[in-house]
């Protein structure tokens, strides 16, 4: 096992150094798809999250409970539901996004939205009432108070977004069922790993896995570093 992983690392280096076009394309496609999905989820998820964390309104707990529960939805279950919706006979068949990158993007964005919403909501909620009072007594208006709370919650918001990206890039069910793992078109790292390993190409599987792990680590480390060094600038 240990030797295979070492071999895997060696072949990754070989692939990367030789600039293997196929693997490069898969990697770039993976980052682009999951990155876009995270962007979409952030765009529509953060206002919902901030609202849930900030305002007390009727039905708030119900909505929160729904998003909390949906964090755990299996990717393959969502994949199947979307497959039925997006297939030619399905109600959204006219969109023609089954077996396309757009399909995966929408699927992953939906998959991670509950995570984005719930994490942002709890980050905003965790800002104590003393910050609200402080902003108030320093002369802030309601809008300015909300902004202050969002700034205070920023490290939690950043965590929500990176965690969402992690889930998107690591999932298999949606990419497989909606994307179809079409070579040169919708193949991403996770579907490629599943395929190569099933084919018996263990080394290639390990190499792809290492690339996936590298992406996740580099993204998380970078975000963490930037956050530590620069978060005070948002003030």
């Amino acid at each position, binding site marked *: 096992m240990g030797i295979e992983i070492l071999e895997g690392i060696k072949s990754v280096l070989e692939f990367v150094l030789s600039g293997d076009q196929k693997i490069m394309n898969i990697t770039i496609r993976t980052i682009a798809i999951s990155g876009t999905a995270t962007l979409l989820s952030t765009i529509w998820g953060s206002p919902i999250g901030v609202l849930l964390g900030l305002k007390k309104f009727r039905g708030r707990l119900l909505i929160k409970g729904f998003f909390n529960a949906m964090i755990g939805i299996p990717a393959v279950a969502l994949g199947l539901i979307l497959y039925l919706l997006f297939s030619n006979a399905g109600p959204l068949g006219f969109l023609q996004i089954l077996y396309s990158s757009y399909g995966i993007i929408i699927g992953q964005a939906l998959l991670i939205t509950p995570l984005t919403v719930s994490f942002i909501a709890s980050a905003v909620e965790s800002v104590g009432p*003393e910050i609200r009072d402080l902003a*108030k*007594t320093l*002369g802030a208006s309601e809008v300015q108070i909300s902004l202050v709370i969002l700034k205070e919650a920023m490290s939690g918001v950043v965590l929500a977004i990176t965690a969402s990206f992690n889930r998107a890039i690591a999932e298999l069910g949606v990419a497989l069922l909606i994307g179809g793992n079409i070579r040169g078109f919708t193949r991403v790292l996770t579907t490629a790993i599943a395929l190569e390993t099933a084919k018996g190409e263990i080394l290639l599987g390990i190499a792809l896995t290492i690339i996936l792990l590298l992406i996740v680590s580099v993204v998380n480390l970078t975000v963490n570093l930037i956050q530590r060094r620069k978060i*005070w600038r948002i003030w």
Partner: protein
Amino acid sequence: MAYMVEIKDITRRYGNINALDKINLSIMKGEIFTIIGPNGSGKTTALRIMAGIDRPTSGEVYFDGVKVDEGNMSKIRTKSTMVFQKTALFNTTVYKNIAYGLKLRGFSKKEIEEKVKDGLKIVSLEDYENRWAKKLSGGEQQRVSLARALVLNTELLLLDEPTANLDPMNVSIIEETISWVNRERKTTVVMATHNMFQAENLTNRAALLLEGKIREIGTTQEIFKDPSEYFISFARTENVFSGISKILKEGTSVINVGDGVLIEAVPKKSGKIRLFVRSEDIVLSRNPIISSARNTFNGRIVGISDLKSLVKLKVNVGKEFVVQVTKRSFTEMQLNVGTEVYITFKASSVHVI
């Protein structure tokens, strides 16, 4: 008489509890006013209502003669500011913490820079601009909070237990700052405290708040000279003695509090008086100590109560004194009930009320 802020018949209810029960207070422009009371007496609630960050259940608030309502609340809020007992800081640098209120008020970048620098100087934290606010010590954090309030140069400054849980150096910096801002800028200050010495030293007038009701109000001299039963019951339950005082040739007084205990005090007073000594001002020793302190008594420990890092001891020297020692001293000195000890305190530690 011009009033900075007046609260009339204010009641603030939380659930079934009246945090404030029909209280009336009129704070004069330019004075330092203290609200004295134990924890949970409603001091914080009173300040929050004056600051416009909490609304009374019933009653009216007037700010500079204008009745505070929904419409002018946010405008009035910019004319006063409150420093909280539990230090609240934004998660950023000291500079950005202090600059926040100034930014809201639309000052230019250059003006903000100058004001922050001045503010830090007032609280003796020069060159702290780029430090991370939350990484400072407790006392420094509270001084940053004070500076952040001071740079706004508001007409009214509300301070909630500004020196609670701080060491003497930080306490004196904060106290000096409070009297400076009142003296130099004529800022009206309302301060909540349970420290009556602070009230006595810093302020012109005081009110005693007990269980949401104002029990006493007047100048600090009046209150401290002739303390009411309410006041004594709150202020001191330990080491309070009454006796007959005689002025000595040396310029001090000696008070016979009975049972053979004669206490020397600095204030020159004669006749029947009441005095107290703070338990933390008393030195405990196993042998008599030679020092400048005028009062030394010999007795035995008659009671021990544990207060986490401190131990409170009752020592009977004819009269019972309560003395505080650290747990470490308590162990090292091998103290126990019945141990023979000496207690020593300075004549200047004797407070005559």
